[in-house]
């Protein structure tokens, strides 16, 4: 082969090579651009799927809450409480899945209702207690370690004191002394006057585990009918002797059960009749009360003057449940003044629930908490928020792995 022929063939090779390199570069550029687009589309798709999963869980929860029997006491054995087996069940939707749990809001302490005596039993500093009370009360002079406008107006990002009830749970992060870490994680450096949960200091709950908002329920007797307001009319209720009825009328205005239970002539049977049938006000809804049937150990122990043994007895009775407030009198140790001291904290009918949802799309988890109120058999979403931690399984006391699954839709792929 001559040298010139070889050079010609070499030129052709270089030409072909250059063309191929050009085409490959073009394709690589296109592929890179497409990959970025696909990643963005995939991330958006995941976010949308997570949102749809949470919406599905909420719809499922609302359906369950809509069939609660009106007037029936709120029990841990109710179907709503079993839905999702307290977060241990996977609901499978194609390739994705979600876990859920419905919690009675009245199983926790209402941020707007807890009095100082109850707050002092919680892992809170005096500065936090005073500031919390200052935030929600209308007085303009702060408590000793509290804060009003003078303090909040002097902050780098200033604002005014609410001087009214908390509207959202995380509003507490606007209150002096409450940083996110101090609210959402256990305050292990603050000693409590009582042991809230049996166990070590590390096992004590965080403030976010104890508090909720807009809790309460209808003021009903054991027949599911409205209780009689002790402040109006003649009190002709079976079980309440005329002398006690007269004493109640004489003690008006009645604002608490404690007033009625401390009247002369009120024994255990009469106390049961009062708690079952009378109300200390005309409000059809008792806001901020704790449900005897669903309260946690820590919440029961937070009630001022609650004997520890009585709290344990209430916990052990929760499996069968209290059908009326008067059954509180059957708890050993809760008679006379002890009963009068705690009765005003409780109810047995709740109307507000917290729905916890954890959606999983691919490897990404998205959590949501939704507050729902059931009125007249109709559930309504009051608020929804995203928990501070991406994976709240520990805070919600859920197992890492589920124990069962319900396939709502098979994976078609």
């Amino acid at each position: 082969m001559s040298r010139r022929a070889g050079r010609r063939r070499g030129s052709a090779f270089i030409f072909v090579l250059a063309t191929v390199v050009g085409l490959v570069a073009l394709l690589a550029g296109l592929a890179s651009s497409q990959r970025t687009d696909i990643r963005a589309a995939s991330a958006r798709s995941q976010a949308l799927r997570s949102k749809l999963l949470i919406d599905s869980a909420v719809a499922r929860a609302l359906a369950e809450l809509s069939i609660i029997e009106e007037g029936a006491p709120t029990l841990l054995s109710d179907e709503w409480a079993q839905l999702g087996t307290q977060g241990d069940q996977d609901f499978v939707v194609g390739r994705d899945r979600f876990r859920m749990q419905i919690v009675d809001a009245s199983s926790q302490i209402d941020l707007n209702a807890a009095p100082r005596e109850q707050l002092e039993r919680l892992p809170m500093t005096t500065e936090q207690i005073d500031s919390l009370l200052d935030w929600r009360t209308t007085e303009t002079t702060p408590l000793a370690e509290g804060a009003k406008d003078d303090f909040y107006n002097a902050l780098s990002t200033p604002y005014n004191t609410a001087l009214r009830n908390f509207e959202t749970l995380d509003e507490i992060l606007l209150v002096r002394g409450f940083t996110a870490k101090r609210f959402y994680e256990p305050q292990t450096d603050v000693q409590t006057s009582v042991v809230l949960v049996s166990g070590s200091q590390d096992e004590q709950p965080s403030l976010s585990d104890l508090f909720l908002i807009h809790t309460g329920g209808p003021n009903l007797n054991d027949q599911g009918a409205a209780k009689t307001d002790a402040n109006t009319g003649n009190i002709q209720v079976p079980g309440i002797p005329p002398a006690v009825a007269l004493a109640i009328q004489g003690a008006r205005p009645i604002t608490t059960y404690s007033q009625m239970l401390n009247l002369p002539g009120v024994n255990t049977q009469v106390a049961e009749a009062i708690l079952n049938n009378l109300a200390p006000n005309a409000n059809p809804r008792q806001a901020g009360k704790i449900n005897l049937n669903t309260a946690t150990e820590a919440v029961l122990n937070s009630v001022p003057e609650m004997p520890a043994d009585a709290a344990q007895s209430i916990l052990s009775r929760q499996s069968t449940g209290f059908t009326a407030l008067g059954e509180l009198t059957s708890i050993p140790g809760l008679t006379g003044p002890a009963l009068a001291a705690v009765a005003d904290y409780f109810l047995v009918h709740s109307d507000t629930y917290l729905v916890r949802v954890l959606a999983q799309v691919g490897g990404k988890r998205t959590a949501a908490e939704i507050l729902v109120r059931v009125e007249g058999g109709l559930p309504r979403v009051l608020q929804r928020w995203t928990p501070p931690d991406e994976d709240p399984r520990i805070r919600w006391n859920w197992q890492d792995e589920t124990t069962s699954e319900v396939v709502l839709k098979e994976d078609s792929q």
Partner: protein
Amino acid sequence: MRRSAFTLLELLVAAIIAVMVIAGSGLAYESAITTQARHAARVEQQNRITKLEDRLTTLLQSAVLPIENENPAGYFILNALSGSTTQSGQRLVFSAFGDRVRWDALRSDEDFETQNQRYGTLGGLAEVELGTETIGEGTPQEGLLVRSQRPADGDPTQGGEQEVLSADVTSLEFEFYDGANWITEWDTQTQTTKRLPAAVRVTYLLDGEDQNRILVVRLPESDVTLENPLTTDGGDE
């Protein structure tokens, strides 16, 4: 022996083929580059629109009214500021809730005052306003603007910080579904019981386009339904 060589004809044919291949490749390359650039521009535009609509949806879906009807920090009002409607569009102000607490604050050991300085305010109801007008005396800005203030202070006309959500939006209008019809007014301050619309229809125009775009957002916290429309609520409409 005579050395073999290409004839003139062979060279011409080879040259023509080479020119055709090069020209074809060049044209194909140019076409591919143009198509790619056009596609990238379209994708970029679509991404901007998607991002805008996702953000608008998230903001509108965070609308919430206080459980206590008397709480002045909760509202949902179109054109809260008297005379604020301009040729360029309207402004919608509402109380909002649901933001996640920032993760760095969750891990911070700093005290309350230091965190207020570092992160600003956290928690509670916020006030959000969507519109195309600059509020206050700052440098005028153009586009879809979002004003946010935390905590909501009961004054729906001002306060907080304003930022540009999209500089491409040239006009903006809102309509509200009251359970029966789409209506053009909504003001919780005139309602006996404050209620959110079941859905909001946002009509907006992008710079360089001659047709409006429409986004419909359902408000999950609304109790307005076909069975429970606004008009049955004691004449609130």
